[in-house]
């Protein structure tokens, strides 16, 4: 049974080699038969990897401890959901998931790419084949998930308790759908370079993939952030941890790619830049995979640290990044430059967007790798942590965020800043009002915090202004406005939603960073304490027995300002005996868009319990905003022109129209 999975994986590798060579050879020699091999081989490769993945999942579900990977990461008492999600809660399994998604996307191109030029399709599939072959070889050579143990142990070693959470079911798959989704953009770029041809239909194909990958990556990062927030027990939502940075860099580059692909599709400008950006985005995804999987950076995410794996991924990384950049340097000059535009135009605004986003991505990259570089060159150990990123990333983002509302209001080719500014007067007034209200009515609000709130308001109102202007709110009668709204292309709603989400996330980040309050104390049962107008009464602490853990659960009663009970908050510490590890299950109560966060610690000498309580204003908006961005991506994805795809040759000639008498 398990060996079937192993065989399937080896076969998939062999097919990936065929996929790497045959369609490409066909495309270069103009041989239709060879090109036609690409589709079936890709689909078969996906089926085989899916089979291997299914076999591993079944081994986990059945707790088959004769498989070393299952023994290392599972336990028979673990709830079924965590047995299944545990499949990718380890190095080998997560690499298999990575390849599964890669081959899945390849198969999608094979199935839905019939309207692509045959040679482009064949070349794209071959490039996907290279990536697939490299990673399948990596799995087979260094990280085989199907290795057996003999004799089989009776019981497994359990999964890291921190990972025994619903977050593991959602966060890695979403993140990988994003990471690996950019591989398609990469393959299209490399194919365009090999073909030496790039046009608007290329952009029409690349844009939905970028959108999809970006939306998944947004969701994945947000989910990871929320998971860390509730699981790690100190209520932080972003730590600038190297692994977080590894997923954030492709996101920044992908966001830039998303915007430059619009310019390329609509105005066929920025072609070469878009191509480079697509290559860089996937390169950053590969780099992220390397950083996480090699363990060169110490991090909470590093399940496995094994030098041989690190070197193998480093080779893959060098081969793909170096190779694609060399190809770019060689072939990019032969590509025709695109359309002209005035600096003050939609294109100009999007160029500015790209400038800031790529600089931000580079800053995060340098910050993440700098300690490695310094240690390699001088042997000194230095740290680059949150204070550095806050100090550099913040000022880089602020001007970009100020400019966001202008972009969609500028015309293509030649825009009018003054007209755009006039339309944004209402949004500006709203932002100003928000600043003043914050300064006047919130105790201890700093000017910077007030400006942050104003900035967030500005983005939210600016996003809505764009829609309002296009629908003619204020100038046309209500019925016309509704009709116009219904007639607007979906991608326009997508833009509004995504920018709105960005504003909400900004509001959440500013709210928590500037106005969070905390209360740390030792409490005894019956005692009360106050935070931000609420009163918390510590009831008692009770032991609870879980399926594979023991728990100490503290119960608190929440009272509002009027003394009325507003329900219970449960906060606990769990202990997982197999791994001898504790976890925190924070007590979180959502009140409006803010949250009360209660986390408990150890007992004090005099019989009290250490309790930390935070009031986190607007905190849910951080992830709510990300969901809105994701929804914006999805709405855009279903825009008419992307549903229909690249223009295809009309199958039949139009019927001659009857001439009216």
């Amino acid at each position, binding site marked *: 049974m398990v060996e079937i999975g192993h065989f399937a994986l080896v076969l998939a590798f062999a097919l990936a080699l065929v996929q790497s060579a045959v369609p490409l050879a066909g495309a270069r020699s103009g041989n239709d038969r060879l090109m036609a091999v690409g589709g079936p081989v890709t689909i078969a490769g996906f089926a085989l990897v899916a089979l291997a993945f299914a076999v591993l999942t079944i081994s986990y579900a059945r707790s088959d401890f004769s498989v070393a990977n299952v023994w290392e990461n599972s336990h028979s008492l673990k709830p079924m959901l965590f047995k299944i999600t545990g499949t990718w809660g380890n190095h080998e399994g997560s690499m298999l998931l990575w390849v599964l998604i890669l081959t899945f996307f390849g198969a999608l191109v094979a199935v839905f790419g019939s309207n692509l030029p045959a040679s482009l399709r064949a070349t794209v599939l071959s490039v996907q084949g290279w990536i697939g072959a490299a990673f399948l070889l990596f799995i087979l050579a260094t990280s085989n998930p199907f290795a057996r143990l003999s004799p089989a142990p009776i019981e497994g070693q359990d999964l890291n308790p921190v990972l025994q959470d619903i977050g593991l079911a959602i966060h890695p798959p979403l993140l990988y759908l994003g990471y690996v989704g950019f591989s398609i953009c990469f393959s299209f770029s490399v194919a365009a370079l090999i073909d030496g041809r790039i046009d608007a239909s290329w952009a029409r194909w690349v844009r939905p993939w970028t959108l999809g990958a970006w939306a998944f990556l947004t969701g994945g990062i947000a989910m990871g952030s929320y998971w860390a927030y509730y699981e790690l027990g100190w209520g932080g939502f972003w730590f600038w941890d190297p692994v977080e940075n590894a997923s954030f860099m492709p996101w920044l580059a992908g966001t830039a790619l998303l915007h430059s692909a619009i310019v390329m599709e609509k105005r066929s400008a920025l072609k070469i830049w878009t191509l480079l950006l697509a290559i860089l985005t996937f390169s950053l995804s590969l780099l992220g995979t390397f950083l996480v999987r090699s363990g060169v950076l*110490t991090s909470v995410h590093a399940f496995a640290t094994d030098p041989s794996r690190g070197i193998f991924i480093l080779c893959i990384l060098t081969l793909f990044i170096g190779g694609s950049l060399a190809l770019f340097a060689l072939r990019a000059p032969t590509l025709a430059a695109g359309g002209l535009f005035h600096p003050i135009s939609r294109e100009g605004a999007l160029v500015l967007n790209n400038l800031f986003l790529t600089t931000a991505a580079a800053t995060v990259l340098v910050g993440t790798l*700098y300690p490695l570089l310094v240690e390699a060159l001088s042997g000194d150990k230095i740290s680059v942590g949150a204070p550095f990123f806050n100090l550099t990333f913040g000022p880089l983002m602020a001007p970009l965020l100020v400019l966001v509302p202008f972009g969609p209001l500028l015309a293509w080719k030649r825009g009018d800043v003054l007209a755009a500014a006039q339309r944004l007067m209402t949004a500006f007034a709203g932002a100003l009002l928000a600043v003043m209200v914050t300064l006047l009515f919130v105790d201890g609000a700093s000017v910077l915090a007030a400006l942050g709130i104003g900035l967030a308001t500005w983005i939210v109102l600016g996003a809505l202004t764009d829609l309002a202007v296009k629908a003619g709110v204020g100038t046309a009668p209500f019925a016309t406005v509704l009709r116009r709204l219904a007639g607007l292309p979906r991608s326009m709603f997508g833009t509004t939603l995504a920018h709105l989400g960005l504003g909400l996330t900004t509001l959440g980040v500013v709210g928590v960073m500037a106005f969070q309050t905390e209360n740390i104390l030792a409490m005894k049962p019956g005692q009360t304490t106050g935070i931000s107008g609420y009163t918390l009464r510590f009831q008692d602490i009770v032991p609870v027995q879980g399926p594979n853990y023991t728990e100490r659960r503290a119960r608190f009663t929440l009272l509002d300002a009027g003394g009325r009970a507003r329900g219970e908050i449960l906060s606990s510490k769990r202990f997982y005996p197999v791994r001898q590890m504790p976890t925190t299950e924070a007590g979180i109560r959502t009140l409006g868009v803010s949250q009360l966060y209660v986390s408990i610690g150890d007992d004090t000498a005099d019989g009290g319990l250490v309790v930390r309580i935070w009031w986190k204003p607007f905190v849910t908006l951080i992830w709510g905003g990300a969901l809105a961005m994701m929804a914006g991506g999805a709405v855009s994805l279903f825009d008419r022109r992307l549903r229909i795809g690249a223009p295809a040759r009309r199958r039949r000639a139009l019927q001659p129209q009857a001439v009216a008498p």
Partner: protein
Amino acid sequence: MRRSGTLAAIVLAFACWSGPALALLPGEALGDPALEARARALSAELRCMVCQNQSIDLSDADLAHDLRILVRERLMAGDSDQQVLDYVVSRYGEFVLLKPRFNLRNAMLWGTPLVLLFCGGLLVMVVARARREVAPAALDADESAALDDILRR
């Protein structure tokens, strides 16, 4: 006794990596709110040496606890923020700083955003200017006279 060897340090690092963090303990905070605010700000800039990428403000490890106390002692003794940081660096090395110093070795780190933004901006401007020169030149006197002539008809 617990922190008396490498093994203990490894155990600590492990507890810190996996375990729930509950950093600041009741009773650690200073009475003077201004001084305590400075202590918190400094704590966020100091790395917990036995943890994986956590500041001492967030870490539950004993070493972080000791460092938090140390920072507060120095502040009580009248040190400036910089003096506290210098003192901690003199004992633990530069690795302890989460915000690397501005010095020549870190020039590339701190310079990247500025240099990239500047060079990128310059590049965009140069390309835009080069492109604009391709745009049709203005009409000369004869041509505009001819155009006026046509328009007047």
